């Protein structure tokens, strides 16, 4: 037995050396090319689900299962996010103590701009998501920031998404190495396995969309953020992108980071970019 384990250790060292030698070559060849990524991303899903039209991927599980689609259509007649949408509309124009309102913080008074978020702010060198921008607007007007996972933030983003319904995602990566790096980090987060269940976002949303995790049918990664924020029957309430990311983490027994952490904003940047061209369908209803 000792001899065999010695050989094992020897070959392990050899393998490690090889790996180390090979690794840099792989990274060098693997320059970051978002345009190609986006094309490959769309091709992967349209090949995997030839019957699903490109723009229908934004309906997530409902484009994957007929029985669910019927239940969705029935819900959409009078959707459960109706109240949150109305609350968001009211809050959006309600003046702060200093008289200004959200409308003054956003281009075009915040109407029909959701499809441009998240964007890369070259002054700060960071990804700015819609939720972050909304809280920054509050802080700029001496108002306390909202929690990223509760109803107020969901109502605001629901209203802004509603005003952009049908407009294609239009995420830009400026010619700035930091933007490319943020995009690449987001991609890495998306494919990195985490949590005791050892799943990455891709394990569910790339390897097995359309299949069930107990009662739920998994959504394809393409267009997965187009319907945000979503009213989930599971939560019987609204959920922002932040709430979705943190709950996904804890479901696979990974400790979630704080909402709107760099990693979360970067993965939202990556996922939105590769879904460019698909229409905004938020706010959405989901199981």
């Amino acid at each position, binding site marked *: 037995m000792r001899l065999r*384990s010695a050989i*094992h*250790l020897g*070959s*392990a060292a050899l*393998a*490690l050396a*090889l*790996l180390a030698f090979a*690794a840099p070559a*792989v990274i060098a060849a*693997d320059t970051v090319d978002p345009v190609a*990524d986006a094309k*490959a*991303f769309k091709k*992967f899903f349209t090949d995997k689900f030839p019957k699903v039209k490109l723009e229908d991927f934004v309906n997530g599980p409902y484009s994957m299962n007929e029985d669910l689609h019927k239940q969705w259509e029935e819900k959409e007649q009078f959707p459960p996010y109706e109240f949150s949408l109305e609350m968001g509309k009211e809050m959006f124009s309600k003046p702060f103590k200093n008289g200004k309102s959200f409308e003054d913080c956003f281009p075009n008074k915040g109407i029909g701009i959701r499809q441009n978020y998240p964007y890369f702010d070259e002054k700060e060198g960071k990804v700015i998501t819609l939720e972050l921008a909304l809280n920054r607007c509050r802080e700029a007007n001496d108002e306390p920031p909202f929690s990223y996972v509760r109803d107020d933030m969901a109502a605001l983003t629901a209203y802004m998404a509603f005003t952009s319904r049908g407009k294609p995602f239009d995420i830009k990566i400026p010619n700035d190495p930091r933007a490319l790096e943020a995009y690449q980090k987001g*991609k*890495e987060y998306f*494919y*990195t*396995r*985490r*949590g*005791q269940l*050892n799943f*990455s976002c*891709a*394990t569910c949303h*790339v*390897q097995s969309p359309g299949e069930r995790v107990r009662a739920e049918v998994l959504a394809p990664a393409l267009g997965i953020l187009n319907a945000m924020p979503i009213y989930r029957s599971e939560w019987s309430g609204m959920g922002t992108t932040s709430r979705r990311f943190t709950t996904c983490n*804890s479901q696979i*027994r*990974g*400790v979630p*980071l704080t909402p709107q952490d760099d*990693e979360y904003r970067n993965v939202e940047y990556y996922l939105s970019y590769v879904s460019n061209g698909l229409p905004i369908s938020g706010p959405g209803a989901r199981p």
Partner: protein
Amino acid sequence: MRNAMLKSALPLVLLIAGASSALAEGSEADFKAAYAAAEAANKEAGSLRNQWTTTAATLAAAKKAADAGEFDKAMASAKEAEALAKASIFQATSEKERWKDMEIR
């Protein structure tokens, strides 16, 4: 590529096996050491931003058992918490490269 990973993991296995085999007779001092080791490992996982929820839960169970004076149980939980934390560290480090395997190209 995969069985190279299999072989390179071997040394780390021995490390873990070594740690958990030394189940000393349940005394408070041993427990405290084991608990500290587990917490340190979990902290390191935190620095890699890859902690597991089950590590924290096992640590809490260890603490609860220790408070109740059941040091055998507390020791076992502390050991398992350490193993979980080390596993989460290994996961973070090895995923640094492996994530590319599943990337859509």
